[in-house]
């Protein structure tokens, strides 16, 4: 988020001019440093009035149960100028910060954060490479078979194919769960998390086989297995890969790295037609209000102001990120609109009714890395993930 510092500072100044309330933004990078800082601040009761919680939903729940996060449900439902605050925001972005009745963490139902922007994570492809290879630059592959066919054509022309920052294993997790939902549907994925379906089920083995096929078809750019996403972004922006798997924030990143880059967004290619293709998305960044702050009212007032049409349009234009306010969408650039178009296909781990155990997720992602380096077969990875699942489930 540190790439948006100028825009945030400008908005803070504007808010101060309008309300005489001073706002000081502090932005940190990388995200792990910020995450640690917020956890440490919570321990010492020095949390800022407004802050973000990075990490998984169980961390968010832990913050709430410890009394660090204000429940904003009432504020979001309160009518102002004839409409509720939450009506202006994308429901899918809001739901990322929502805890439903009977949630697995035992958190009181409510909405505990305000999304300030929206993200979708999908694929992008280089249109120039497509044109030069005789492929239709307006017709990216829809299915896995088409994707493989296009990759073969690109390979013949010596174009490196696919890059992603798979050194950051959450990107592997995102792509794999997209395909898992396409292969077996959300319900079966969740039943696996519940322990009712084994990872050795043929559908999961088939999912691992897709990554195995990436190796046999020589699709992945060398080094992508340990590449951080920033390097992967450079690789795609510098036209050293035809496809990338990345989030909508990449529009701003690619613009900075190569303003002339000709690319478009596409959904990851479907493995089957059995279920629709889902992608990760929803709230990009969300702000929470410190429940123990004596400036709570002003903090909420600022968030309400920040998510209004005008401010959101300003943020979207200045930072090239998707706004969380639906009414500000009209003013975003066409490439960003391509990412916004796919909001209907969005799922977010925070909105899952059930979550996988962290050790299993790690074994799953590292297992896929092992397939990508040719060290393990899909069957071996499936068996290992199931072994970890059974072991960890006993500890619960």
């Amino acid at each position, binding site marked *: 988020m540190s790439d948006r510092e100028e825009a945030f500072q400008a908005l803070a100044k504007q808010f101060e001019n309008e309300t005489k309330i001073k706002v000081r933004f502090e932005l940190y990078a990388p995200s792990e440093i910020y995450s640690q800082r917020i956890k440490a601040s919570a321990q010492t009761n020095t949390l800022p009035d407004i802050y973000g919680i990075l990490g998984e939903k169980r961390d968010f729940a832990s913050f709430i149960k410890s009394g660090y996060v204000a429940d904003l449900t009432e504020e979001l439902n309160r009518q102002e100028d004839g409409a509720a605050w939450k009506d202006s925001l994308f429901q899918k972005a809001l739901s990322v910060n929502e805890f439903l009745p009977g949630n697995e963490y035992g958190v009181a139902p409510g909405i505990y954060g305000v999304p300030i922007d929206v993200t979708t994570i999908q694929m992008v492809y280089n249109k120039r490479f497509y044109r030069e290879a005789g492929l239709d630059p307006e017709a990216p592959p829809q299915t896995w078979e088409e994707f493989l066919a296009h990759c073969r054509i690109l390979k013949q022309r010596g174009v490196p194919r696919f890059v992603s920052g798979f050194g950051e294993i959450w990107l592997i997790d995102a792509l794999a769960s997209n395909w898992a939902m396409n292969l077996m549907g959300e319900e079966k994925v969740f039943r696996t998390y519940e322990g009712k379906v084994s990872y050795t089920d043929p559908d999961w083995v088939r999912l691992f086989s897709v990554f195995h096929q990436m190796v046999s078809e020589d699709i992945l750019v060398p080094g992508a297995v*340990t590449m951080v996403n920033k390097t992967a972004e450079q690789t795609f922006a510098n036209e050293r890969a035809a496809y990338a798997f990345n989030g909508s924030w990449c529009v701003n990143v690619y613009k900075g790295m190569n303003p002339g880059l000709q690319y478009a967004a596409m959904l990851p290619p479907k493995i089957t037609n059995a279920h629709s293709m889902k992608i990760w998305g929803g709230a990009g960044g969300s702000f929470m209000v410190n429940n123990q702050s004596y400036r709570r009212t002003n903090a909420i007032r600022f968030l309400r102001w920040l998510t209004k049409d005008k401010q959101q349009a300003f943020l979207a234009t200045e930072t090239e990120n998707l706004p969380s306010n639906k009414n500000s969408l009209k003013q975003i650039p066409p490439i960003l609109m391509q990412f916004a178009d796919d909001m209907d296909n969005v799922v977010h781990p925070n909105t899952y009714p059930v979550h996988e155990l962290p050790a299993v997720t*790690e074994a799953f992602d590292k297992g896929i890395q092992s397939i*990508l380096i040719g060290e393990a077969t899909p069957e071996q990875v499936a068996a290992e993930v199931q072994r970890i699942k059974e072991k960890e489930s006993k500890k619960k």
Partner: protein
Amino acid sequence: MTLQKVRNVLGNYFFILPAFLLFSIFSLYPYFNMFYLSVTNWDGISSSVTHVGLENFKDIFSDNAVFWLAMKNAGIITFLALTVQNFLALILAFLCDRDIKGGNIYRVIFYLPPVLSGIVVALIWNWIYDGNYGLLNHFLAMIGLGDLSRAWTSDPKTALFAVAVIHMWKGFGWGFVILLAGLQSIPRDLYEAARVDGASGWVVFKNITAPLMIPVFILVSILTILGTMQIFDIIYATTGGGPGYHTEVPITRIYAMMIGSSKFGYACAMGVIFGAVLLIISMIQIRVSKMMRQV
């Protein structure tokens, strides 16, 4: 005890009080707190903790193969650093100990890598090791060894050695400086006397340099072991512990437990075990050094 003596004693304690307070707050308290947290399942956020006894330790010893693999990986890098890195440092220290032209410039150059940030060094080496446009692959192709080209940090056969090379490149300057200081502390007249007696270079090294350098060798090896076992920043910025678990080391596992899994208590238990391993290694080294001195 007279009043004067009491005053003197209290005065002494008063002078060491600031240092003692700082040490207690920033070293002792975190140290004991880590022990306390290691027997809990604290997630790093909650205001309450649940005690789990020795469950975390039991799990690490009996059912955490990745942690022990990480320990083995750190051991391999440490072995390479102890041998290759320190041998290189010793050779360079020998060369600079002689009155060669521009000796001071070499000292500065050799000492540059250790003062650079680990992350910066790793990023530079990422560029060298890059599988597509890396300098190393380019060089190999130039000398007709293009078949050896690969993504050095993503290939399971080379990843660990690739990060070990970065670590050694960054670390040899420390050993160089300490070894050079040790060499320069040996009285020159001992060498002159040996030469007058007709001793060869090897005999001089074996009977004068090596025995007098033993304390320095031990210091360098202790620092190398402790420094290398705790390697983190280079791995974090190059491979992130991957591919698979091929470059995982204890600190990356502890970090992953704290940040990725929010298992703070478990991570503290790993930290306690890792600290104990380092303590045992250091004690063995000190013991061996005492024995060698007696010989």
